[in-house]
């Protein structure tokens, strides 16, 4: 299981630091998928990259916190030990499958590269074929010699998933793995990931901006806004009864196919705050319909019926303007 505690990450520009992730804490239990949701720039990808320690000077700096995988703090490991952990325990599925594969590298070799050269070649080959077949690549044996450009986006993503899973990782980090795909392919990829999670008892950290996708796949969601966790808990609870005004606005912004009222799509007015060094008060207050004097002080995460919310007004009934009524 993955435990992230008080993670604080800053990006470096010349002499300035802009803090992209502030005091983020959440767990990814073994065998469960946690969805990290939020809009662009909310810091969700930064959290995912920090777990793999890919945020390093001169780009950025993990300033504080801990990332424990089965009790071992990844941030304290030596570079060599970290590489071993990355190789053995963590699988990464990137956003754009076509960019994730080396254009000069054949399909079979992509998966083969991750396997130990100590395994005999024929055995590796059989392993790769069965893995690719189980991920829905038909006739995998005849396609190992193909180049990535000869595959469709969905097929490339299956190959990328195969490279992530080949070593039997404990944790899979997926950074919007279906965003670049069309919706039908999205669905089959999501089903595949879910099946693999069950089969292998994986912990999965799933970064997405799509609440509908998170709702399908994740047992838990963590909602981020401007680098902070604003709400986290079991998916059904968070999405069906959002307690934070931001989550409520996000849920309200999802277009509903059942909505016959031809109402305009709901947008959240305003812009998220720019990342900065210091910040006072709730970052969402300027856009929040419930903002009050109390919001000038940053609210702590507090538990409310199994869901943790960082809002002074959590649980206060909102005026109907914000939430889409679909029935």
């Amino acid at each position: 299981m993955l435990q992230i505690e008080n993670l604080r990450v800053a990006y470096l520009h010349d002499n300035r630091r802009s803090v992209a992730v502030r005091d983020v804490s959440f767990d990814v239990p073994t065998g469960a998928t946690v969805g990290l949701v939020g809009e662009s720039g909310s810091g969700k990808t930064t959290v995912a990259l920090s777990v793999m320690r890919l945020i390093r000077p001169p780009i950025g700096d993990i300033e504080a916190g801990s990332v424990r995988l089965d009790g071992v703090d990844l941030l304290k490991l030596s570079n060599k030990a970290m590489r071993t952990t990355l190789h053995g325990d963590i699988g990464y599925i990137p956003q754009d499958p076509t960019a994730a594969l080396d254009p000069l590298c054949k399909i079979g070799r992509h998966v083969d590269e991750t396997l130990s050269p100590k395994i005999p070649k024929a055995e590796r080959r059989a392993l790769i074929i069965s893995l690719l077949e189980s991920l829905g690549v038909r006739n995998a044996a005849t396609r190992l010699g193909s180049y990535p450009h000869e595959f469709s986006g969905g097929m490339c993503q299956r190959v990328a998933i195969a490279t992530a899973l080949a070593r039997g990782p404990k944790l899979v980090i997926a950074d919007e793995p279906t965003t670049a795909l069309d919706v039908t392919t999205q669905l089959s990829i999501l089903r595949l990931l879910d099946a693999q999670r069950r089969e292998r008892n994986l912990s999965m950290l799933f970064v997405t901006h799509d609440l509908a996708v998170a709702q399908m796949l994740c047992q838990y969601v963590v909602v981020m806004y401007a680098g902070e966790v604003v709400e986290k808990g079991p998916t059904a609870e968070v999405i069906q009864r959002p307690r934070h005004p931001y989550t409520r606005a996000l849920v309200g912004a999802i277009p509903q196919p059942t909505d016959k009222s031809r109402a305009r799509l709901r947008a959240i007015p305003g812009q998220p705050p720019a990342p900065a060094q210091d910040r006072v008060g709730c970052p969402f207050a300027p856009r929040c319909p419930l903002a009050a004097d109390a919001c000038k002080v940053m609210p702590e995460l507090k538990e409310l019926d199994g869901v943790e919310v960082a809002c002074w007004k959590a649980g206060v009934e909102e005026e109907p303007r914000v939430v889409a009524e679909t029935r």
Partner: protein
Amino acid sequence: MAIQPQLDLLTDSPKAAAVPQAITEPGRRNRRGHSHRPYFSGGILALFILAGLIGPLIAPHSTTHVSLSLYLRPPVFAGGTWAYPLGTDELGRDVLSRLLGGARISLLVGLSVVFISGAFGLVVAMISGYIGGRIDAVLMRFTDATLAFPTILLAIVLAAIFGASEQNVIIILAVGGWASYARVIRSEVLRLKKQDFIVMSVVMGAGPLWIIRRHLIPNVMSTLVVLATLQLGAAILSEGAMSFLGIGVPPPAPSWGGMLAGGSDYLTTAWWLALFPGIALSLTVLASNLMGDWLRSRSDPTGHR
């Protein structure tokens, strides 16, 4: 309630969950868009390399034998005799024999320079581009300094110190030539480094050497080949310029560049002295560029470009 739970989508019946059909044909690769096979360029290069290997054996005359009584005979089609098919130079040496003998020196110098400076430039580019930071800054300033320094001046200085010989010509030209490889390939590495497939390799726990060897070098190969084919011609010409200044391959050994440079004095009276090495040089440069184009399109699996 805003959204209906859609969890059933994930636990659908196996039929509905079936994966979409594979779209592309399995197996066989279809390489389209390739330029013609390089018969012309390959033929020219093979001919010249062959000339370089066995030239002195089939040459009708000695490459260095001077007989002043035979000086400046025109080639056979301009009133000369078959004894000296391409005429003779100002010292009465057979132009054809010197052309054949010169092939060895010119190609040896050209290929060695390309190979040495290409390999060195590649190493610098990989270290600089992949590691970055302070090492990158130091190496790139060094590269800029090399690029800014006029090659011919550098050549004069180095030749004055180490003397003129075939080996020194190669070293001097390689010292002046690696920097453009380093510059261009480094920028390629910077572009590639940010690509997801390199990030994927890092996440798989691959070390820098592995990534450089398995992913970066294959991906910069097409750029390297193009640079090398351009530099091959330039190196042969530079050797000529050095010969002209008396710091190239020392006379009387024949080289195309040297013959061209020497022949330019007689351009109005004995045009054949400069014409034939000039043609040989142009054909080599043209053939190596065409070969480079073909190699590049071959090394690109998508078959585009």
